[in-house]
């Protein structure tokens, strides 16, 4: 079985993984949410069509999304060093995780907001609602369930990225899996990290699903 020092190492790595996942997802939303909103508002036929803004954002999002995560992490190393002072470890990884997740989140937000019934938006317009009121009260309010489902997907994806970041010294469960499980061929540790990742993923999914169901008023009980 695992020794107590191995267990405490695994637990610490789990904590690091959770920390990296939560912080980078949160920071990615700070970028991705406004970009997603702009993609909807500025789109042709949107609330305030701005062709140039839409095109530029659309292209940036597509480019950043098409760079594989590991390569993006390498590219972001100078930026991570400039901000956190280090090019490895959990905090440095958070920078690249944020950059990788933000465009993905922008797309998730965009697709959630596009689901909102055009008729309801028109009703708000007929009441004299401005763009800001429509975004905050109608789009976000009506799409909240879909936004929560989206953030569940985002958290899961970022958790996957954190594991990958272990390959280049990112810290967390992925790091342990690479250094102990792979480099030293310690099968027990490798399996333990997989089990812990599965548990984390399950937890995120269950909480996300429950929350979205609880908040959905379209279902009649």
């Amino acid at each position: 079985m695992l020794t107590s020092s191995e267990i405490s190492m695994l637990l610490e790595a789990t904590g690091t993984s959770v920390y990296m996942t939560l912080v980078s997802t949160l920071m990615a939303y700070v970028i991705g949410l406004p970009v997603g909103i702009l993609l909807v508002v500025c789109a042709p036929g949107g609330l305030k069509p701005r062709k140039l803004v839409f095109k530029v954002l659309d292209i940036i999002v597509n480019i950043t999304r098409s760079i594989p995560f590991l390569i993006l992490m390498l590219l972001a190393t100078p930026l991570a060093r400039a901000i956190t002072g280090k090019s490895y470890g959990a905090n440095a990884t958070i920078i690249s995780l944020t950059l990788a997740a933000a465009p993905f989140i922008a797309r998730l937000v965009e697709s959630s907001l596009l689901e909102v019934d055009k008729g309801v938006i028109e009703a708000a317009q007929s009441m004299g609602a401005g763009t800001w009121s429509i975004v905050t009260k109608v789009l976000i309010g009506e799409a909240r369930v879909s936004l929560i489902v989206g953030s569940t997907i985002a958290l899961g994806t970022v958790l996957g990225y954190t594991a990958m970041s272990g390959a280049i010294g990112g810290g967390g469960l992925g790091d342990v899996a690479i250094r102990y499980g792979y480099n030293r061929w310690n099968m027990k540790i490798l399996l333990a990290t997989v089990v812990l990742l599965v548990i984390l993923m399950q937890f995120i999914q269950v909480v996300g699903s429950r929350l979205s169901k609880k908040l959905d008023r379209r279902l009649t009980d």
Partner: protein
Amino acid sequence: MEPMIRIENVSKTFYGKENTVEALKGITLDINAGDIYGIIGMSGAGKSTLVRCLNFLERPTEGTVYVEGKDLSAMSGKELLKMRRSVAMIFQHFNLLMQRTVLDNICFPMEIAGVKKSEAREKAREYLKIVDLSEKENAYPAQLSGGQKQRVAIARALAMDPKILLCDEATSALDPTTTKSILALLKEINRKYGITIVIITHSMEVVQEICTKVAIVDAGELAENGTVEEVFTSPRSKAARKLVFQGERKVSLMKSKRCIRIVFTVNSSFEPVIANMVLECKASVNILLADTKNIGGIARGQMVLQLPEDEQVAERMIAYLRERNLTVEELEDYVD
């Protein structure tokens, strides 16, 4: 008197990549304060585009709209938003916020206008009482029937304290009984609060039930307009005739091709006019279409009769009907 809404030479063209659609072509129309004005047309006639021009949700390509004498095309974006607060709108599919309770839906326009939350809630309850749904204030739209949803939408419209209420096919998704009750509610709102109502519909029944005036829109053009009685009694345009005779044409075993249309406006509902005519003239007629209602003891509506082949008898019948103060009109080609 200055009209509440003046539609002046409004045209709207949609430019697509491959084709352009002229949805409206030079429509001019006045709607007076206190009117319940029906705008009727077949689907695709442009009536929904027209109603969206009244609050500039669609900006006309040409021409303009005046609301209370103010030119909407001269307004800035901000002024337009403010103007829209006095022009409420209800829709075929209700367009309620599905994630909000009934009460919060009614509070929504007041929220936009910056009314304090406690005050808004208090007012919302009053409006909910007017539409007779007080017990549903904490329900969500998904828990309501179509008619109840439209009542919430009406309460939400009232919450804007509007001068004008635009109804875009507001009863088209409802069953006949519910339609009647919604129309009755609209009528009451018009009478009690003096709100000018514009009703977009494809159904002549809705117009007859509630409207004082009607405009017929056909292929983007104004085919005809006037009081409901005028248009219904003597439709001039082809589009109007088509709408007035919405009933199916029936093939008859009677050989005569002579048909007449009778319009009931003043006769007592309880006078069996047609039966008496048949007894008097001793010849049968074929009722091809009948759509009459008892409104306050007066028969209102229309019938289409196929007359007997014998010309003398037919003439006698027409004379008999005219004596009874009915409007009689010969129809050509009603039966082939």
